Every structure is written in structure tokens, then in C-alpha cells.
């Protein structure tokens, strides 16, 4: 009975750490390859939330709440970052609709 064997696989902390590292990697790669400011911004959020998975997994493993309280603070920071980031992005897009990261290249030298 294949299904029964699969159900017996209990996820360990390592699974969550690997998942978190993968999510973090996806976020970092996305930030580097995508050119739409909104998508880049979502990638940063993905990276922060990937770290939250690590914190929670480790907190459950250690049986202390340091990691879980950390998650609350990170969530608040992420929310504040949304406010600031969207504000800046909207003020740019209002001036130049459809601007991508490559269009923002007035500063160089």
C-alpha cells in the first residue's frame, strides 16, 4: 500500500529549513532577474517570509518562543516596508506609467 508508506513520512525540522531556503532562493533570484518594480518588491516580501518559516521551524524544534516572537516583529517590519515601498513605487509610476527598473537609469557615471 504505497499511500500508507507516504503518510508515515513525518516532516522533520530539516524539511522546513530546506523549504525555507528554497523560498529564499526563489525570492533572491526573482529580485535579480525581474524588472517590474512591483514584482521585485514581492520578491523581497517572499524572502522575508521565507525567513519566518525558518524561525517557526526552529522555535518548534527548540521548544522556546524566541523564534515565534521574532516572526511577529518581522511581520510588522514587512507591513511597514509595504507602506514605504508601495508609496515610492506609486509616486514613480504616476510620473512614468509602466516604468521598469531598466528605465530608471538617469543616475550613472
Amino acid at each position, binding site marked *: 500500500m504505497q499511500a500508507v508508506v507516504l503518510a508515515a513520512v513525518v516532516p522533520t525540522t530539516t524539511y522546513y529549513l530546506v523549504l525555507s531556503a528554497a523560498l529564499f532562493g526563489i525570492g533572491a533570484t526573482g529580485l535579480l532577474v525581474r524588472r517590474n518594480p512591483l514584482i521585485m518588491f514581492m520578491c523581497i516580501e517572499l524572502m522575508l517570509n521565507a525567513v519566518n518559516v525558518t524561525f517557526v521551524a526552529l522555535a518548534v524544534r527548540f521548544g522556546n518562543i524566541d523564534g515565534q516572537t521574532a516572526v511577529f516583529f518581522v511581520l510588522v517590519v514587512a507591513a511597514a516596508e509595504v507602506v*514605504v515601498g508601495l508609496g*515610492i513605487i506609486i509616486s514613480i509610476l504616476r510620473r512614468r506609467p509602466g516604468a521598469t527598473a531598466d528605465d530608471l537609469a538617469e543616475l550613472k557615471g
Partner: protein
Amino acid sequence: MLAQDDFFLAPGIEWFHLGPVIALVSGALVLLVVGALTPRWPRGLYAYVTALTAAVAGGLAVFNWNDITDDGVSTLVGGALAFDTFAQMITITVCAATLLVALVTDDELRRAGKDGPEVYALFLIAATGAVVMGSANDLILLFLGLETLSLALYVLAASDRERPTSQEAGIKYFVLGGFASAFFLYGIALIYGGTQSTNIGEIIGSFQTSVLLDGKDTLVLAGIALLIVGLGFKVAAVPFHMWTPDVYQGAPTNVTAFMASVGKAGAFAAMLRVLVIALPFHRDDWRPAIWVLAVLSLVIGSVLAVVQTDVKRMLAYSSISHAGFILVGVEAAGHNAGELAPGDGMPSVLTYLLLYSVLTVGSFAVVSLVARNNGGDTSLDAFKGLAQRRPTIALALTVFLLAQAGVPLTSGFIAKWGVIQAAVEEESYAIAIIAMVAAVVAAFLYLRIMVSTWLETGAESTEREAVPFSTGVAVFSAAAFTLLIGVWPGWLLDAAESVTTYAK
């Protein structure tokens, strides 16, 4: 199961010792709330309230310093904040820089007709973040301080809504800064994975008590690598410096001055807290990384600065090279991190941060005066003939540039001497020699600006720069401080050297 306490004891709150943070936050709240509810304040009042707040916070830090020398170090609010002279030194640096920047900003905003409380409130919030970074005794609190500082800086960089370059600077800073923060946070999570705590005292304790098993150490080492990446971005060390020239050039000049002084002081304070104070047991692992960052920043910062044509961009690259010098001090501090006799590294870094903050605000204040006269132009050409139009301002600029180059009888010499001497003391001869060569290369850059100012003549039609009162005061006091420390550095060096014990 999670640990559950049957009785919960709230941590005691030492209100007076938290004075600097409370003063800065209340100043920001007063500006925001009262500023929003009342009509426009009379001229300059926003700036003076900001400057007063910074002065009060700095004064309270001096009181705290005396308490610490009398009663020794301790931790505040249940071990969340460290109460030691290191934290007070960073607080004083941040408050001094905020005070000077507030004075410079006053004229800048009023001339543009954009006077209002928002920018000043953001300055004070950012300063609070930097102070928390300097006094955090918990990595999560350190992260909160970092984000408080960074989020305020993103908005400040984009605050000139009429100039597209300012918005471009804002979004670039935001994206790369957020990227770096995520790395920093992942580093904290992995350190937590290796030590079961985010509290710096408990992290050190876990290294002292536990036997190192293989798997455990991997997490900590990976965490250290990620933390160094995150901090490298924030201090603008090569190879994590790409954002610096663009953001420094695009942001309004007063904000650039703030970023170069307060932003750098906060980031280096965090670096010292994390590496030297929290992770002395891995000093042989992180020190080589710092060595590489220092050398790259010194060489690339100095060389690229010389080929720029925009003065703000030149000063941005020069700030990268200054970051290299400070990293030389961090590397020296790493040689005997965690020992009872901490050596000269730490004091030299703290001295450098204070002196460089004042210098850089002074330099950018002069740049803002010249730029305003030329419709925002900060190229080298705009500085031509400044000496004929405004000899005193040209003289002040020369003092700042000579000090940045590290010429004797200025504070910059004391700063550079400190870090190089600390490196020689720890027998890091290679890095000391590279630092001295880089100083010579960078001197050429400052010479270029001075030649433009003194020897070349500008267009006949150029008007004389207007020097408003508060900017004049800021420039004059920064220049006086630079020369005063140059000839009479003893008291500051003694104060910095007394920073030997850290609360954990």
C-alpha cells in the same frame, strides 16, 4: 510544547537610562502630531525643534556615560538593550550628526518652499533607529533598529518629489536595502538555529557552555556569512556598494549628508555588536571576510572616486573608501574580540565614526550651498571660482577635504592614524600598508576639488552663493570641530579608550 510560565514578571523599565531614545521619539511625535494639527510654524522652528531634540538626546547620553563610569555596565528592559559606553558613544555621534543636518536642512527646504515637519520627523525616527542599533543586546531588536533607520532613509531619499533622480534614488535604495535586510534577517535566523537564542548574552553563553557538534557549527557559520552580506550592504563596503553612488547623487544633498553620517554610524555599530561582541568565538572565521571587504573598499573606493566628475558622486566613492578604513579598525578589533584587554581596534572605530560624521556633514553642507546657486548642479564645474565668490566657504570646504584626506592638524588625521595604528598593533601589516596607499590615491581626489575651488575661475555670470544663517553655523562649527580635534585630540581619544567593557 512551548515553555509556559505560570507567573509572568514584567521586565523593569529604566526610564532615565532610556532617555536618549525617548527624547528622539518624543521629538518626532511632537513634530508629526503638533505639526499636523497646527498651521505652518514660523520660519525655522521645525529645524530648531529637531536640533534641540538631538541636543537633549546627546546630553542625556553624556549623563548616561557618567552613570556607567560610576556604576558599571548593565542591560535594560529585561536584557534587550545594552547600557554601556559603546552605546552612548554611538548615541552622541548620531545626535551630533542629526543636529548639524537639521540646521543644513532648514534653509534647503525653506528656499524650495517645502518647509514642513515630515522630513524632520523622519530624521529623528532614523536617528532613533541608529541609536537602537548601537545599543541593541538582542539580534531581533538590532534588526528592528536597522529597519527603523532604513525605512526612514528610503522615504528621505525619495523625498524631493519634483526631481525624478530623487525618486530613482529612493527606489534603488529601497530594493537593494530590502534585499540586504532579508539577508541580514536570514543570518539572524541561522544564528538562532545554532545557539537557540537571539539574545547576545545568551548567544555568548551558549558558546561557552556547549560542546561544538558538527551540524550546529554549520548553521552559525552560514549565519555569519549572511550577516556579513547584509551588513556589508548597509555600510557600503565593496562588493556590496553598487547602490551608494546612485543613491548619494540622487538623494537631496541634506539627506545624503544624513545617510553618510548617521546611516554609516548605525550600520557600523550593528557590525561591531554582532561580530565583535556577540560572536567573538568565531572571530577567526569572520575576520578574513572583513579583511577582504576592507581591502576591496579601500582600493576600489579610492580609485573610482578619482575618475568621477560629479562632486556628490566623488564624495559617495570617498565614503566607500572611508568605510574601508573603518573596516581596517574592525579587523583589528577582531584580533582580540572577547578578551579582557580588547586592544585599540574598537576605540579607533568609534573615534573614526564620530569624526567622519562631522566631516561629511560639513562637506555636503558646502555642496548644498553651491548646488543651490547653480540650479542643483553638483558637477566639478560648479565649484570653479568658489574661492573668489565666497572665500570663507571655500576655506571651510578645504578644511573638510584636507581632513578627509587625512592631513595632520585635522581630525581626519587622528581618525586615520587611529585605525592604522590599531592594525599595526595587531601585526596586520599588509592591510595597514594598503590603507596608507589608498589614502594617497584618495588625496588626489580631494586635491581635484580644491584645484577647482581655488585655482580655476568660474563663469563671469555666476552669482555669489547665498550663505544662510543656520547653514553657516553648521559649516562653521563642523570646521571648528575638525581643526580643534586636529590639534587637541587627547580628550576624545581618552573617552574612546575607556570603551572597554560591554554589557551582554
